[in-house]
Each structure stands twice: as C-alpha cells, then as structure tokens.
C-alpha cells in the first residue's frame, strides 16, 4: 500500500491504482486478469455495495485492457441536445482515447436518450480496420445503472446486442435487484462484495503505519464494527476520530457522520417517550436530515437498525414489518417526510402497546 498525491483524505490518498495494490478479494483480481487477456470479453456488470471497490476495479480492468493510455483522463462538461422537442442537457463525461464514463441517471427523465446518444457516438467512432488495432472495441462505463429508469434499461437490451462488436458496456450498480432481468442476462456478472471485517482492520492498520501513528487493535476493531464493512466510511471515521482525540482513549467513541448521529438521536427519542409532542420533535429532526440531502432510504435504514438494537427481540418482527412497509411507500409517494413520520408514529404505537401489556404476546400489524 503506497500513498499517492491524490489528496489529504486518506480515502483518496490510499486508493489503490492497480489490481496488485488491492488488499482484498485476490480471486477477483485473477478473474479480471483472465478476462482482459482476450478480445471477446462480453459486456460486464459490476455489482456490490457502496465502498466495496467497484470503481477501482473497473479502472484497473481498463488499464489491463488498454494499457496506461486508459488512465489519461479528460473531464468534460458537455451538453447534449436530445429528445423531441429538443432539450439541452448538461452532463459530465470522463474520457480517455479508448473509453468514456458517465453517470446517465443524472439526466433524470432524459436518461434513456443520453445513454443512446453516448452509445451511438462511441459506436460510430469504431476503428474501420479492426485488424490494425490490438483491442478492436471501445468501452462505455455507465455508473449507477440501478438508478436508471426502467425505460432506459429496456432501451439497452437490443442496443447492447447490436453494437457489441465495436463497443462493450461496463455497467456499475450497487445492487442487482434494481437491474431488469434482461440486462442481467446480457452481461457477465462481476460481484464485488464488501471487504470482510478482517480485511478492513488490516487496511486501517496499514494506513496507520504509513501515516506513522499508533492504532491500538481495540480501536481498529471498533472502527471496523462502526463502518459496516464500508472501507471508505471506515477510513473517514478513523481519520476524523484521530482529529477528535489522539492518542486514542480506551473509551473513545468512533467519530460518526453528523447525519448518523441525528438518526441515533431520533431512535432514542422514539424509545423514550411516545406522545404527540415527541412526534413533532422527531419531525423537525427528519426535516433537518432531508434538507441536508440525506436520502430518505438511508434514514429509514439507519433509524430502524438503531431501534432494533435497543428494542426487545420480541417486537423485532413488528418493527421490521412497519419499516419495510413505510420505506416501500416512499417509492410510490412524493414526499418523503410523510412516510418517515408515519413510520415514527406507527413505531410509537407498537412500542407503547408492547410496554403497556408486556405480558401478552404481541404481533399486531394491519
């Protein structure tokens, strides 16, 4: 693990540049090397949770395919004229002479048109004489494909087949579940799991050595537990914990992002008192989070996990059920706050009922 000059944050500074530098999932490394050796590589779909290192691996793969030229990247803000009537859409594109990268879900309703535009552009620039080049295709990397609309995903089906001789798609997604089946079956799936706790712990220790500070095992383990196997989050937590207090004290809490602290607070407010007044108070907290652009689904998960941690196992099914239900409604509704609030109110009801007749077995859900 070698530091680079990509910034002050350890997450950037210690981002591996080649597959050899990746500290975990060595078998995946071999797999990617095997793929890169031949030109008949199919479209690829990299999927795995945030912070599992998909992006790094994709960059490494491109380097394996094209050599160092794939790393000479150019950032462009381009505007596309798409649709009918034509509409101008701004989009940030990252490109090398061999590939382009974009996040088409940024284009909202026009995502389908942008995707098609990019593919046509790349396909029309295909080398005329495929025998003259070592790699006879270009690559289009699309980020956050799980946020693409269904229409945009549908539109990729036949397009992927039609242009597969001259261009290859590398799709990236946090979760396969949100990718329509016909796209999954048109791609070689590359699953990138989160690193294990041990792997995270090892990376934290390596960074501490490189940075020259003392990291007691016990604190490294604490950070590992707190970051839910997300290395990016773990490194941020370690760095800001160190700024909070160093040398690390035995009882020092792991530094957490502000929004996580608010979620923990919401959960404890809900557990301690169930009343109208409390609901109003919780509501202001939800608002606070939403105005800071924290995604509502992340709030749902975080508050639920916190509630599950503190409440009795007996009401876990009821809590899970109402969390699952209201989080789902989020997808169909318009205003997140209503569903968050409904969840809070429902939880209070469940919890109060449980406390009130703790002797009776309670699973009530309607």
């Amino acid at each position, binding site marked *: 693990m070698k530091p680079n000059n990509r910034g002050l944050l350890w997450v950037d500074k210690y981002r591996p540049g080649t597959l050899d530098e990746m500290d975990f999932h060595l078998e995946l490394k071999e797999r990617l090397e095997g793929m890169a050796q031949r030109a008949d590589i199919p479209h690829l779909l990299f999927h795995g949770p945030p912070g599992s290192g998909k992006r790094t691996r994709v960059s490494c793969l491109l380097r394996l395919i094209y050599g160092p030229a794939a790393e000479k990247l150019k950032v462009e803000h381009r505007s596309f004229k798409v649709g009918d009537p034509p509409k101008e859409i701004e989009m940030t594109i990252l490109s090398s002479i061999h590939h382009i990268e974009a996040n088409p879900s940024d284009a909202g309703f026009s995502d389908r048109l942008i995707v098609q535009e990019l593919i046509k552009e790349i396909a029309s620039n295909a080398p005329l004489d495929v025998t003259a080049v070592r790699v006879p295709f270009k690559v289009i990397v699309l980020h956050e494909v799980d946020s693409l609309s269904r229409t945009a995903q549908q539109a990729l089906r*036949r397009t992927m087949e039609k242009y597969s001789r001259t261009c290859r798609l590398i799709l990236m997604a946090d979760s396969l579940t949100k990718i329509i089946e016909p796209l999954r079956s048109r791609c070689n799936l590359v699953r990138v799991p989160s690193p294990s706790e041990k792997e995270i712990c090892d990376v934290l220790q390596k960074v501490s050595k490189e940075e020259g500070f003392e990291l007691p095992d016990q604190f490294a383990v604490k950070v590992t537990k707190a970051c839910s196997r997300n290395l990016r989050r773990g490194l941020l937590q370690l760095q800001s914990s160190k700024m909070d207090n160093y040398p690390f004290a035995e009882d020092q809490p792991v530094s957490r992002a502000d929004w996580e602290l608010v979620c923990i607070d919401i959960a404890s407010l809900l557990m301690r008192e169930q009343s109208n007044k409390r609901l109003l108070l919780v509501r202001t907290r939800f608002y606070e989070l939403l105005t800071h652009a924290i995604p509502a689904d992340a709030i749902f998960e975080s508050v639920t996990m916190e509630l599950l941690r503190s409440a009795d196992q007996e009401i876990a099914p009821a809590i899970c059920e109402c969390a699952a239900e209201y989080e789902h409604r989020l997808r169909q509704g318009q205003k997140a706050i209503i569903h968050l609030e409904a969840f809070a109110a429902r939880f209070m009801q469940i919890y109060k009922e449980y406390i009130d007749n703790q002797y009776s077995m309670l699973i009530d859900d309607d």
Partner: protein
Amino acid sequence: MDIGDRASVLSTPWVEKYRPVKIKDVAHQTEVVAALEQAVERGGGNLPHLLFYGPPGTGKTSLALALVREIFPKEILSQRVLELNASDERGIRVVREKIKGFAQGAVGQAKVKDGKTIPSFKVIILDEADAVTGEAQTALRRTMETYSTVTRFVLICNYISRIIAPLASRCAKFRFQPLPTEVSFNRLSMICKSEQVTASEDLLKLIITRTNGDLRKALMTLQSASRMVPHGSEIGDKEIALASGEVPQELLERFRSAMFADSSFENVQSVVDDVVLGGYPADGLLHQLCDLLVEEDYAELDELQKSALIMKMARAESCLADGASERLQLLDVGARGMYISKSRENSSSLFKV
C-alpha cells in the same frame, strides 16, 4: 451483423458469435422455423404479419433477423428492413411518421434475382414491442392496415398480454419455448468444442438447470466461467456458481435455519448483512428460497405456515421490484419467518398482512 474477418470473430462475445444465422439454425422452435422456411421457399410473397413471443434467450430476435436475411439480398437489406426497438423513440408521433415514411417508399414489383424471388414488400421488425404504450399500439394498428399490401410487421415481445388484442389478432402468433435440456446441451457442447473449453457433461447440465432454458444466459455463464480457469483446464461447479450470480446454498441454509431452527433475530440480522454486504441480489435470494420451500418438506413448518411465509416473500419481492430497500425487506421476511415458525396453533394470525 456480419462476421467477416478473423479479427472480428475473435473479438465477438460468444452470445453474438453463436447467434443463429439461417432460419434453420434456430434450434427447437420447430413450428415457426418450419412455417418460415416454407414461406421463404415460396418466395416470401405470402408471408403474414408475425408475432413472436416467449421468454428471453429463446431465439426470437435471432429468427427475425435470419428471416429478413433470407428473403432479401444483402445489398437491399437496409432499404427493405426497418428495425425498431425499445431504444428508439416510439411514441405515437414516431409510429405515425417514421413507420409511415419508411412504408410509403415504393418497392415496385416482385423481382427475381439469381433464381430467387424478392418479394415486393418491406419488413418492419418491432423488437421489444411490449414496451410500446397502448396508445402507440393503437396508432400502429391503423398504420398496419393502411400499408398492409406493402409492409410486413414482425412484432417481438416477452409478454403477449401486453400487446393489445386488435394488433395481436392481425398477426400469425408464434410462441417460443424455453429450450429443453438436450437442445441447449448440444449447442453448449458444440461451442465448447469450437472454443476449446473443457467441461464435463454434468457441468453443462448444471449450467442449463441454473439458467432455466435461457440459452443466452447459459452461454454467458459458460463464457464467463471459462475465463476463470487457465486455458484448457476443466471448469468446475465453483466457477459456475460464481458466473451464474446465484446466492450460495450455504447462505440460503443459514437464512432458513435462522428463521426456523435457531429462531434467533440476531442470526437473521447477521445473514441479511452477509447477503447485502456480499453483493448478492435480494430478489435472487427470495426466488431460490421459494424454490427450496416448495420442493422440500420441513419438519419445522406445516403447509399453512409455509403458505403464510411464501405470501410474505411474494409481497417482499414485489416491493423490491418497486425499488424498496433490500435490507429492510429481507429483515421483514426473516423476522416474519421466525414468528410464523413459532406460532403453530394460532393459524389465523399467520396470514395477517
């Protein structure tokens, strides 16, 4: 797509490289293959509008492309065939104008070239037609009528229920079947030979079961697995499990026993964590679990309890399709399963939703 020189063959992914070129190369769909062969033999003149429907990877697109390649010589293919798919603008306006514009252009009388009759119509292939809105389908129906003498339509879709009846009734309908094991097996063996891949008979059969008659997926799995072993070495079960993207049995087993045997919410949470953080798809887990529940008998669950759990899973699956959180949906299923397996006597409460 033309597979011309060697280099481009070497750089074509297997699914495209082994796409059937001739009508007769399309395996297993005997009824439609026979019908089209016959129509082509007679010069294609009396070809009806066609509607191909059926599950993914069964040869629908391949057959439509093979058909037009057999009725038209290569030079005029692009004048005579319009391929529209879900990537194209397909609102009403486009259906009216683009299709109209294409259909209107004259083609003249049927000609004979090299002893083959070239029919005097154009073909419009509308792939992924189930993604066309109802309104646009209605417009399409009128266009179809207006130009019925000079055009033939080939509509392709997965779900025939999404095609409006007046449109479907104007076409000769052909249902594409999932490919049976022997057929897929022959295809895969042939490809193994030509790509110099070593795989046992059982292994190919394993791929086929895992991909449920979707030959594209089977091919993709085979190619992807073949890259995990050094050239020429034998592919094993491990590679197939990785390549097919399924949830490992071990995780399924843990999820099941967390619910029924240990009845521990903590264990449910830890499996759900391992599924989500492992990057496994929650919907895949539910599908596999459902198969398991239906196929096997469990001492821990009676029929009623099983049904209650499957109903919960079905609901979670549909929520996932709407984009709901994987973690919360799986926790809900897990916690519910735990509760259901514990409450044996009280059957009516099992079904509360």
